[in-house]
């Protein structure tokens, strides 16, 4: 079956004074209705750029977008601004990390939610405001009929994020992109928001792309994981697959380096050495090779050629971009990585 969102070979390049920034490099994935895809990666790995490309928000900027993005049968990359605009908000919506910055400081929350509803529905302003109250109520804001007249700065951080969600969902979009929706929030509030997202998804059958750098959040919320490094997808599969039998050394590094509530706290964390690369001069070959502990296992290939994204085994939906052969990976994982998890 064809997924609600299908991204094929998406690449985004920013020509800048310092050079061409390859922010996203041949990314392919799909999300079905009612499912959640978690995109995980370090800062600057191209997560936000990907999400903006899906919404077509890079049209009219200097970004060079190639590849295909199919949303509900429309191809976004080649579509004109007006066609995409009609999809935005209605078929796909987005919530951003910094809700305070993402809400207009001079308009009331109610107005901003109603505005989103008004663009796509032939209703009166009053009806739109009623919708705003309804949505605020739905996302758990107490006394919504009063709060619609508040300005964003009068909301607390969690409430703002809820308001963003209410705004995004006001037109029942089939796809919701959440770009680090909880990073700025406290754990307790983060938990509330994630739960809200899950509930809403259950109710409306929305497809969700959840962008985060926290594997824990993905584990709790997503169905699939797309792991990005330096603009490329390096591992892609179901949450269970990727978190339990991770294939890429970067994934191993990530999983072993994050402190957990379980396991022996006295053992040192196994950190990933080095720092993420600059996207202007991505290391040749596998972008991760300068930081990879297992380059020796493969030899010069790592530094000279970019590995393909391949299923870990025939017919599997778990993909990885690594030169090591599956058997080698398997053995390293079981002997060296798993004990640290």
């Amino acid at each position, binding site marked *: 079956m064809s997924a609600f969102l299908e991204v094929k070979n998406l690449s985004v390049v920013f020509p800048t004074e310092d050079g061409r920034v390859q922010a996203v490099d041949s990314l392919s994935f799909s999300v079905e209705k009612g499912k959640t895809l978690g995109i995980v990666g370090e800062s*600057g790995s191209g997560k936000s750029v990907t999400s903006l490309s899906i919404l077509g928000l890079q049209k009219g900027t200097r970004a060079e977008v190639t590849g295909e993005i199919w949303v509900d049968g429309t191809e976004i990359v080649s579509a004109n601004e007006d066609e995409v605009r009609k999809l935005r908000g209605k078929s796909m919506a987005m919530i951003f990390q910094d809700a305070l910055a993402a809400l207009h400081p001079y308009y009331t929350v109610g107005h901003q939610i109603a505005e989103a509803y008004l663009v796509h529905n032939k209703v009166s302003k009053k009806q739109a405001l009623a919708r705003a109250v309804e949505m605020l109520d739905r996302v758990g804001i107490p006394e919504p009929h009063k709060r619609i007249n508040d300005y964003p700065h009068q909301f607390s951080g969690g409430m703002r994020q809820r308001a963003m969600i209410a705004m995004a969902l006001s037109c029942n979009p089939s796809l919701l992109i959440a770009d680090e929706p909880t990073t700025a929030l406290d754990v307790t509030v983060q938990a509330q928001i994630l739960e809200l997202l899950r509930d809403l998804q259950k109710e409306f059958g929305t497809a969700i792309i959840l962008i985060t750098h926290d594997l824990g959040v993905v584990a709790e919320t997503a169905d699939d994981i797309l792991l990005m490094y330096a603009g490329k997808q390096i591992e892609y599969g179901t949450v269970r697959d990727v978190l339990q039998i991770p294939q890429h050394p970067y994934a191993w590094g990530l999983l072993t380096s994050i402190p957990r509530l379980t396991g022996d706290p006295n053992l040192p964390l196994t950190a990933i050495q080095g*720092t993420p*690369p*600059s996207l*202007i*001069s991505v290391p040749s070959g596998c972008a991760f090779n300068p930081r990879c502990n297992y380059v020796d296992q493969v030899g010069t290939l790592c530094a000279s050629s970019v590995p393909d994204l391949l299923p870990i085994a025939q017919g599997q939906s778990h993909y990885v971009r690594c030169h090591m052969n599956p058997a080698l990976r398997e053995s390293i994982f079981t002997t060296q990585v798993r004990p640290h998890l």
Partner: protein
Amino acid sequence: MIGAPIQGRSPARMAWDRIKKDRTAKISAITVAFIFLLALASPIFTWILHTTPDQFHPETLDPSFGTNPVGKLGGISAQHWFGVEPRTGRDVFLRFAYGARTSLSIALSATALATLIGVLVGLVSGFFGKTVDLVLTRTMEIILAFPSILFALAVTPVLENLLESWGVPTGNATRIPVMIVVLSMFGWPYIARIVRGQVISLREKEFVEAARSIGASRTHLVFKEILPNLWAPILVTVALNIPTMITSEAALTFLGAGVIDPTSDWGAMLLASVPFYSVDPMYTFIPGFGLFILVLAFNLLGDSVRDALDPRSSR
């Protein structure tokens, strides 16, 4: 941008490199330099032209209309490159060159003084806060509430009298210092406000905390930690302030509170040209255009400096 570190370039060095690449900045800098050179070299022209900027040349004027130089375009000739002044026949080119001297030195001194006061007040006010800040910001508020041009006009004769009563001789010897004081008096609050704002935000920065946590004294904090971070905004402010000062100096002179004849000054030349703009437009045009070019060049240069020092602001 995280990544391969660039070899040991200080922020100032990076700004300088950016400026060097900026063509507008280069052209403006050359223009400014040219006008400076003209101002500095003005005595040489006295020697070349065998006359002084104050020398009357009655023979160059229409005897029945003292306001009309003989000849085209305000009497432009091999002897008088920019023509002559109506009523006196003084050489306009020399007055222009010497005028650049006066205008620039007053504007630059006023900028320097205003910057000095502004930076000091801004630092003190921003860093120490509380009552000191309250008093200083209130003072700024009051100064900014003054209709500055009017007040500058009104206060010039007063200050002049004051200086005279201290035995300073009348004339430009008192007028010029008074102008500098008056111009900087209204100029410093703008600088102080910017510096104060910067200091307040820097004061809360963690690196200042860090210095405090290792026991740094206030002097260290102000001069070693905060001040180095102020150079960029100060430089930008100064760069954008110079043209304002030039304009204000000219305006003040134009309104009659400026340097006194025979000392030449661009604002004074414009003022003197007013009655003749329709009979001898060249006489108005020359100082006006000079002023325009100078201010434009400084403005462009200021923009470039700002862009270079603050890469986020892009044109």
